[in-house]
């Protein structure tokens, strides 16, 4: 009897280790973080725009079509990596994309977009990070899919990869179908 009890710690340990192994090996994305905002309307914000001389007011910009919201900054290396995919969303999928420029210098942002190409229909500025807090942004880049009635449908933390690109396109296709 005693002998069986003594072997219990090792059994527990091996079970836990196997679960860890399983989680490491499966195609898992730890940066897919559930958001409390999913299926809720977008948080309201009002701020300056990078290109336009008028204020960006969120309630006027969302709610007509499916929109992608992408938090980016020129100082963020992964943002540069994902930029190709953001451009593809615009050129190939014909999506309207709003790029929220997070804690950045507007001049640098302008130069950056000139250099890499501008897929954004508008760039509201989030100079002090307030908008990102309201959106529950963990770390940039982060991308949100907003349905045509202004509701957050999907959130991705980290740079867009080929897999995520496909996933978002699939999601948008189903959103359009439901409509």
């Amino acid at each position: 009897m005693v002998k069986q009890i003594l072997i219990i710690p090792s059994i527990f340990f091996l079970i836990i280790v196997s679960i860890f192994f399983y989680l490491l090996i499966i195609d898992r994305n730890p940066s897919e973080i559930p958001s409390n905002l999913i299926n809720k309307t977008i948080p309201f914000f009002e701020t300056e725009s990078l290109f336009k001389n008028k204020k960006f007011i969120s309630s006027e910009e969302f709610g007509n079509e499916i929109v992608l919201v992408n938090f980016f900054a020129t100082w963020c290396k992964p943002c540069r990596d994902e930029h190709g995919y953001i451009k593809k969303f615009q050129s190939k999928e014909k999506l309207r994309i709003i790029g929220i420029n997070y804690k950045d210098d507007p001049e640098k942002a302008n130069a950056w977009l000139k250099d890499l190409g501008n897929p954004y229909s508008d760039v509201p500025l989030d100079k002090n990070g307030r908008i990102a807090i309201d959106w529950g942004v963990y770390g940039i880049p982060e991308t949100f899919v907003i349905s045509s009635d202004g509701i957050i449908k999907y959130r991705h933390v980290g740079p867009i990869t080929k897999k995520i690109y496909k996933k978002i396109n699939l999601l948008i296709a189903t959103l359009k179908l439901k409509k």
Partner: protein
Amino acid sequence: MIPSLGNFTLWLSLFFAVFQFFSSRKNKNIKYISLAVIFLFFSSLISFFLLIYSHVISDFSVINVVQNSHTTKPLLYKIAGVWGNHEGSMLLWMLVLTLVNYFIFKLLNKKNSSFILKTLEIQAFIIIGFLLFTIFTSNPFLRVFPAQLEGLGFNPILQDPALAIHPPLLYIGYVGFSAAFSMSVATLILNNKKNIFWYNYMKPFVIGAWTFLTIGIALGSVWAYYELGWGGWWFWDPVENASFMPWLIGTALLHSLIIVEKRKSLQAWVLLLAILAFLLSVIGTFLVRSGILTSVHTFALDPSRGIYILIFTALLGGYSLILFGVKSRKFFDNNYFSSFSKEGSILINNIFMTVVCATVFLGTIYPLLVEAFTNNKISVGEPYYNSTVIPIMIPAIIVMGIGPILSWGKEDKLKILKKIIPSVLITLIMTIAIFLFYKSYSILGFAGIILSFWIISNNVLNIIRKNKAYSMSMFIAHLGVGLLILGITGSSVWQDEKIVKMKVKNEIKIKNYNIIFDQIVEIKGINYIAVRGNFLVRDDEKKIITKLKPENRFYPITNIFTSEASIHSNLFRDLYIVLGEGNMANGWVVRIYYNPLVIWIWIGSLLIFLGGIVSLNTNLKKLLKW
């Protein structure tokens, strides 16, 4: 040149570690083993200093320096930056590990040679594992070509003196438990045929590890309190839990070692705890650095590292625990004792600590379990921990107050009842006094204050009575626990928080203080610019008691904003102000916290640490005597 030399010293360390493994395994001449142990220590010391050197001279041909440093960084943080990142921290980890290895070697004598040699063999195995990990998945000496002109910077919230020494202290803790682990495995393998007092050898390492882990965790907490600007000091973050779990098991181990030493009871249990304390340290490292969990602690994530550490953990844990399962029966004894005795109270406390540890472990990995089986994502937060950990801690602390006055073996209940009457009275009086002062009532508040004064009064009374069984170290550490509970209770039960928008010259009241936003100024720091708010704090009698100057810093190199809270502490409360965003026209967002008794958390932790140091000192002396 220097980085290549660094790389070379890593391989050299690996060579000496392998050499130590085989020579101690085959009981070779002591001279060989001593050479291996000493050279191993020096080669890891050299590789550590070479990396520091690369950081200090900003050698931007080294990827590690490019990614984590910048020429504008102050010297202290260039050095501390070495262990502020994953690769560099592995070198510090190695350094502490080889130093512990050296201390174990120093214990070697004719009587205990088989035991110490076995311990050194296992220790060498652990060192080899971590060296391979460092060299192949986290080599800090990798180069980049062409060399870069400037580093990418650093994380400014890590630029803090408390955080500069927090990792080394924690590592001494984690790695110190490796000695206990090796000794436990060695004892099990050898069946302790030669009747070695293995627990006497283990004890100073456990005390040392636990003591430094305590102060390391406390410093991390201090940093979170004034740097993160959330007004709190513990967040049940996975990384915090990763250090808290070995601490809990370490606490249990520390106390049950006393029973083994005095009564030769519970040997098998102690052997298990020694294995678990180190395993939990390694699993913690795995959880934090594999990217399997998301946490506020930023370490670069790399799945291949995760696989490696996990395989290594599986080897260490699988081997030691199966060994325990097969061999520990030999360490059972028939030295029974009543539950109402010193051993009884320690054992009860051990069980509580283990249960708390299991609870925290479950909370930490529960999101992973749920994901593995159901594909859902959940997160476990403060409500879970508060509603599970606190109820288990309450009886543990009641026992802790009475345990030290019980005698070994068996105790007369009536005698004890008489002994504790004064402390019960003191506790009651102090509790009533405190509640008359704060005038705010809650069950948790009552429980916390009663427990705190229960511990404090028992301690103080025993020192006054000159109880022989009461050592200085125990008095200091237990008093620290009492004060710690006082601080925790005060700061969580009576905290007051105000978030307001203030313009210059505005005034706000929190408790009995008036806070006036006097002016806002721009300042320039060494590698940041900041706006600083000047706040005047007036008490009831309109007297200015202090000026608080919270800052909102901007680090242009990394484009990061940080907030520096400004805090006024005294023995009764902290006033804590954080400056948020804003401008002259619309005013600034200001967060003001009134945090009662916080300072006692730090004083308590410091006392626990000091108690540990005193005990380490006595135990080392004892060990050196024979």
